[in-house]
Each structure stands twice: as structure tokens, then as C-alpha cells.
């Protein structure tokens, strides 16, 4: 007996229909959070159950799937989700951003620009950007209905009053298609500009909070700011220690207990691609140093 233990892509068909209908409405109303009947998944909340359900509902046998966690293809969360779909949907997987048709992500947008034949699926912990300002769902829903977003500007203003600049560094609120204020999920604000006018479709799934939302391709996405305190993406002022990239988002890695640290690209595929193309950083290992040694 070789009967498959699960339906294609794990979810049953009725669940997929329900999620698919929610996705269509989410695309039709950019930035609006569509409630959906989120299911229990074979992984705990917080591990991307929302993103996994969205991916499962759209994925087909011809798709090529890439999964990243904080930019990395090689962390536990990314590997387990990639294996999950390789097993339940037999889809091809890749780590190369360009080759993927569906990219599920936790907390990053790839550095390589996305193209029209791609769907970016975000794992979202807290979909409601106003939640920490107003805990009642009835009230936040009313605020979205009335486009009453003054409170969010007050929050950003309080940052300025306290720190002299907008200190929000991730999950930086955006306004989609000049209407809904949306949480871009806990991506660094460095990534916010990539959401604007993006050729790829962007879908967001929050499993525990049971919400799906979307940004259609070529849609205006503006990070909230003030005339005298314009939005500024943040990046450590250093090149990547492995590939010398000056324009990628960097992770800070502590290397010893004496204050040693290195900065490397958070996007592993981008960094590896640059290294393969011959770019070398100050701490590049292997070929570069061996070569240097053999000549010296």
C-alpha cells in the first residue's frame, strides 16, 4: 500500500476553499485583515501556522518553493516548513530567490528583487497594527472602518519625543493603497520600501490570530512618518563580513565574550550568490585565504 497519508499539501479541500475565498477578498481589499477559520497545524502557533496555511492553499505541483526564516534558508523553521511541503505536496524546493514561484518568509523580504511570477507569503504573529495601542478588537475594527489612525501617529510621535527619532525598528506600520494601515509583520523597517510597487503578490497569514491580508502587485505601500521626521530605513553601517555587500540588511553576530562581533547578510541566498560571484569580505573563509596563503 502506497496510499498517501495526507491530502495534497496537508489541508483538506474544504479548508483550502475557505482559505482561498479569504485570499481573494484580501487581494480585493488591499491591507484589510480578512478573518478566516484558522486550523490546527502540526506545528505550534508562532512557528508560521498562518503562513503555512496560506502556502498550502495556493501551492500546486508545478510550484518551486523557497522558505526563509530571518533571511536564512538554513534555520530550523525554514528547513522544517520546506520539508513539510516537500513531503506533503512533493513540490520542488529551492534556496535561490529567482527560481522560486512561492516564497514563504518569516521576518524578511529577500534582497534579490521579486518578479511577477512570484508570491511572497509572510508568517505573521500579530496582524493588527493597532493592537498594542487598543486591545479591543471591536474598537480596532471600528478604527479601521473609519480610517481613524491618529493613535498610530501619536505612537510614532512619542518615539520622537522620547528618543529624538522614530525608534520603531521592525513591524513598522505602513499604509496600503492610501487606505488601510497594515502591519508588515516583524520585518525590519529596512525592508518596507521593497513592499511598495512590488511586482510580486504579497500574502500575509496569521494562524493564531486567524487573519489573512494581502498587498496586490504594483500597489502603493507607504511607511508612516512625519514631514520633519521622514521614514528612514535602518542598516548597520558596515559591509557584510563575508561578501562585502554595502546595501544588504545585516545580522550582528557575537563571536566571542570579549566584545568581538561580525556583520553578515541576513539573506543567506543573496550572500552566497555574491560570494560565488567572487565578492569577498573581511572575514571570508576558505578559498580566499587559501589562495592568499599559497601565494604568500
Amino acid at each position, binding site marked *: 500500500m502506497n496510499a498517501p497519508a495526507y*491530502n*495534497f*499539501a496537508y489541508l483538506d*479541500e*474544504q479548508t*483550502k*476553499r*475557505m482559505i*482561498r*475565498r*479569504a*485570499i*481573494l*477578498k*484580501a*487581494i*480585493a*481589499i*488591499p491591507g*484589510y485583515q*480578512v*478573518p478566516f477559520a484558522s486550523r490546527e497545524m502540526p506545528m505550534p502557533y508562532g512557528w508560521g501556522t498562518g503562513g503555512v496555511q496560506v502556502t498550502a*492553499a*495556493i*501551492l*500546486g*505541483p508545478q510550484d518551486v518553493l523557497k522558505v526563509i526564516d530571518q533571511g536564512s534558508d538554513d534555520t530550523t523553521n525554514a528547513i522544517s516548513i520546506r520539508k513539510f511541503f516537500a513531503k506533503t505536496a512533493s513540490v520542488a524546493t529551492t534556496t535561490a530567490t529567482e527560481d522560486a514561484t512561492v516564497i514563504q518568509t518569516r521576518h524578511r523580504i529577500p534582497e534579490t528583487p521579486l518578479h511577477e511570477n512570484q508570491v511572497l507569503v509572510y508568517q505573521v504573529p500579530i496582524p493588527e497594527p493597532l493592537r498594542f495601542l487598543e486591545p479591543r478588537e471591536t474598537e480596532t*475594527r*471600528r478604527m*479601521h*472602518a*473609519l480610517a481613524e489612525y491618529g493613535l498610530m501617529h501619536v505612537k510614532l510621535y512619542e518615539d520622537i519625543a522620547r528618543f529624538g527619532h522614530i525608534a520603531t525598528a521592525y513591524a513598522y506600520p505602513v499604509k496600503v*493603497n492610501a*487606505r*488601510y494601515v497594515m502591519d508588515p509583520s516583524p520585518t525590519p523597517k529596512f525592508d518596507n520600501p521593497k513592499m511598495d510597487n512590488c*511586482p510580486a*503578490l504579497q500574502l500575509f497569514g496569521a494562524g493564531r490570530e486567524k487573519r489573512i491580508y*494581502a*498587498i*496586490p*502587485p*504594483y*500597489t*502603493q505601500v507607504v511607511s508612516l512618518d512625519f514631514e520633519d521626521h521622514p521614514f528612514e530605513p535602518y542598516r548597520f553601517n558596515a559591509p557584510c563580513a563575508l561578501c562585502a555587500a554595502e546595501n544588504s540588511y545585516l545580522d550582528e553576530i557575537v563571536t566571542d565574550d570579549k566584545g568581538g562581533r561580525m556583520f553578515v547578510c541576513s539573506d543567506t541566498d543573496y550572500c552566497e550568490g555574491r560570494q560565488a560571484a567572487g565578492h569577498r569580505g573581511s572575514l571570508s573563509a576558505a578559498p580566499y585565504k587559501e589562495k592568499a596563503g599559497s601565494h604568500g
Partner: protein
Amino acid sequence: MTTIAELPPGFADKVLSAQSTFRSVMDAMARPGSVQRIVRTSGAPHIMMRGTAAIALTLFDHDTPLWLDARMSESTDVAKWLKFHTGAPVVQDSSIAGFALISDGGALPSLERFALGTSEYPDRSTTLILQVESLDSGRSFELRGPGIDGVATLQASIRPFDLFERLRVNETLFPRGTDVVLVAEDAVVAIPRTTRVVNKGS
């Protein structure tokens, strides 16, 4: 009287056909004005186009009240086929329908007769599935809005002729509104509520 055994069949492969059909509809919704093809088709009762039948099998179930226009509801085959393959309840009151199937666009009721959603829950609105004559020839329409890189041009023969004038109410209603999926045989074009259309004439 048709028996169930005589009904046109559904998808040969329910799972993968529904997935393929959904992706076409999703791409259509994400890129308004672009013509997407329904690749995997099923049997369809007379009156219902192949694309409409595939969309029904992909998106309808017991959770989606359906409203059928007069021509669709006159055909007992359509109601039976939908009931057998999708289980979706057919309702008389269009204002509570999740989807509306329209084969005779000329007799399309006024859009306010359908659910437009509420300000708090604009997603609780009827999606119109409107069968049209052609999505590759006819009058030219210029489309703008989310999902469109600048301007998209759609050539289509659509009834009602004033569909896009009627849909202009979406501009003032937003975020409430009507989303429309146009079907011509296996071709699908979506006009979500964010799309603004200028009639360029013939």
C-alpha cells in the same frame, strides 16, 4: 428529469484541478484586466460556461450561499449540478449571497441588491461571476488600480454594456464594494473593487 448519474461530471482530479483553477482566479484578482485561462475543466450543465463550472467546483461549498440569475435558476440542471457537486445552498435573497452566478448580463440587477459588506467587515460581500461573450475582442477599456503596472487594456464584449459605469460606485463605497469575475468560456478576468475603469469606446 435528469438523474444524478446523467449530470455532467465534476473535476476528474478534484484536488489538483481546484488548485490550478484557484491560481488562475487568484492571478486574475491580483492582476485586474489580465486574461487568465482555466486549464482544468469539468463537465458543465447547459448555460454554464466551462470557466464558471470550474470556479464553482473550486470555491463553492456549504458555507457559500449562491444567488442564481433568472436564466440560471430556470434550468433545473444547473441547480442539481451545483447541489450535487458543491452542496452550496441556493438563496433567493441576493443580499445574503456569497457568490452570484449571472449568465444573462443584460438582466443584471442593480448592484445594491447584492451584499456590499460593512465598513467593519467589507469582505462580507457578494462576488459576482458574470458570463460574458468575449474577453479578447470588443470594446476597449482602460484599467488602473492596485495590481496594475500603470494602465491595463482590456478588450471585451460585456453585457450589461454599462457594467463599468455601474461599478464606479465602488469608488465612493470603498472599502465596501462589489468584486466581479468575468468569464468567457475558459478565459477569466477579475475586476476587484479597487479597479477604476475608463471606457475608451470601440
